[in-house]
């Protein structure tokens, strides 16, 4: 089924009945349902509805999120994403409000509804929009992340995340090493810079770690910004228990700076701006140097993701030029890794 067909489905009278049941309304009308841009894993639709009765009575603009045809194994089921959004909301994190969840049945695929939050998410536009740095926005992004990290295990509503590991960073490094070995076995392509980076990280892996709820894709591109205000945190696909510095390092990794590589915090401002907001809420005293290991970890993660994309082309028969070219981004990422690690690994 094409995306356009799917949009038409959600404008049908049958879906209006479904919507009323899900949202506790006595009746509902869908006045608009259009596919939103982006979302390789999910299909997102903006849906305007009018509801009679129930907690959502009145005119509503919502996002309907469902799985796209090409499902990726790592993709989180919609009910888990719904629970994560609810937990984030309760913790005061800027995020869409989860509205309703359909588990999937004979007539309708699994989908979730959440409030539509207006704003700009594009990294290119956000970093280009102003030539000046945006320290206030980045400070708010840091504070928002600290609110998320206040969620600690165990959380019964998030039991699908499994038990928190006592050494989440070591686990991540191990998983990257395993994948890199798989890549090499599948393609014959040894990537010695990755071996170097693994050794560098192994010499610096934290010995004692506290696990918190980490987003695992907290970066420019997944944050909706309205003027200088952080409006919402998007894409909760990868959330799990982990070291809070992982999210901070990922936000500051070179791959997410877009038009301003010299601005270490997401191409928007300085790391100190991010940490000022973070520390004030979290009660921590992190300094920029604390993030170094996790910036390299983030860079390695991005390299692993790029190789995973390339492998979908090489090994899994997905005929996509974009996937193929992603594999050829590795030398850039490796060059940055060599700059970040310096000339000794121990």
């Amino acid at each position, binding site marked *: 089924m094409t995306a356009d067909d799917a949009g038409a489905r959600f404008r049908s009278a049958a879906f209006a009945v479904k919507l009323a049941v899900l949202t506790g309304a006595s009746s509902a009308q869908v006045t608009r349902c259009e596919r939103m841009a982006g979302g390789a894993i999910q299909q997102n639709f903006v849906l305007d509805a009018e509801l009679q009765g129930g907690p959502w009575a009145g005119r509503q603009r919502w996002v309907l999120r469902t799985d796209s045809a090409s499902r990726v194994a790592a993709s989180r089921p919609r009910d888990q994403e719904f629970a994560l959004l609810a937990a984030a909301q309760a913790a005061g994190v800027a995020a869409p409000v989860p509205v309703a969840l359909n588990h999937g049945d004979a007539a309708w695929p699994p989908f979730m509804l959440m409030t539509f939050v207006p704003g700009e998410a594009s990294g290119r536009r956000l970093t280009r929009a102003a030539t000046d740095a945006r320290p206030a926005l980045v400070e708010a992004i840091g504070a928002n992340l600290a609110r998320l990290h206040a969620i600690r295990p165990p959380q019964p509503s998030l039991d699908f995340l499994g038990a928190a590991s006592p050494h989440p960073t070591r686990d991540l490094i191990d998983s990257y090493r395993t994948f890199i070995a798989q890549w090499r076995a599948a393609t014959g*392509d*040894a*990537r*010695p*810079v990755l*071996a*170097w980076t693994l*050794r560098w990280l192994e*010499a610096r892996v934290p010995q004692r770690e506290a696990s918190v709820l980490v987003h695992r894709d907290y970066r420019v591109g997944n944050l909706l910004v309205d003027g200088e205000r952080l409006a919402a945190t998007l894409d909760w696909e990868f959330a799990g228990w982990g070291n809070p510095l992982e999210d901070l390092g990922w936000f500051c990794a070179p791959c997410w700076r877009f038009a301003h590589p010299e601005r270490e915090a997401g191409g928007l401002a300085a790391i100190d701006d991010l940490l000022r907001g973070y520390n004030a809420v979290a009660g921590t005293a992190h300094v920029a140097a604390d993030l170094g290991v996790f910036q390299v970890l983030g860079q390695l993660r991005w390299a692993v993701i790029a190789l995973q994309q390339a492998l979908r082309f090489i090994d899994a028969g997905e005929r996509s*030029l*974009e996937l*193929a*070219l992603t594999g*050829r*981004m*590795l*030398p*850039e990422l*490796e*060059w940055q890794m*060599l700059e970040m690690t*310096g*000339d*000794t*690994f*121990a």
Partner: protein
Amino acid sequence: MPERPDAGELLDIARESLLALVADTEPRHHYMLRMVANAMAIARREIGTSTVHDDAGALWRSIEACDAQDRAAQRALHAELVAATRARLAISNPKFLDAR
């Protein structure tokens, strides 16, 4: 000797012809056209160079075997990695190096 025009010459003119179409093509196709042109440019540079000759497997083994105390050996390995990565960048994205 290869036949003329050779593979590189064919890729060059194919890419030029493709890019000449961009102005007359709907904007929604531009991203794909530029990706196609980029893929052709990488392939062109790769067949134009005597391929990357670094022995990546050997370098990998040297890194794994390197003594953590031997900083001189690590510096030498780092220099090798920088050179090998520079050679790969010259094929996959020479503009990236220009900016550095």
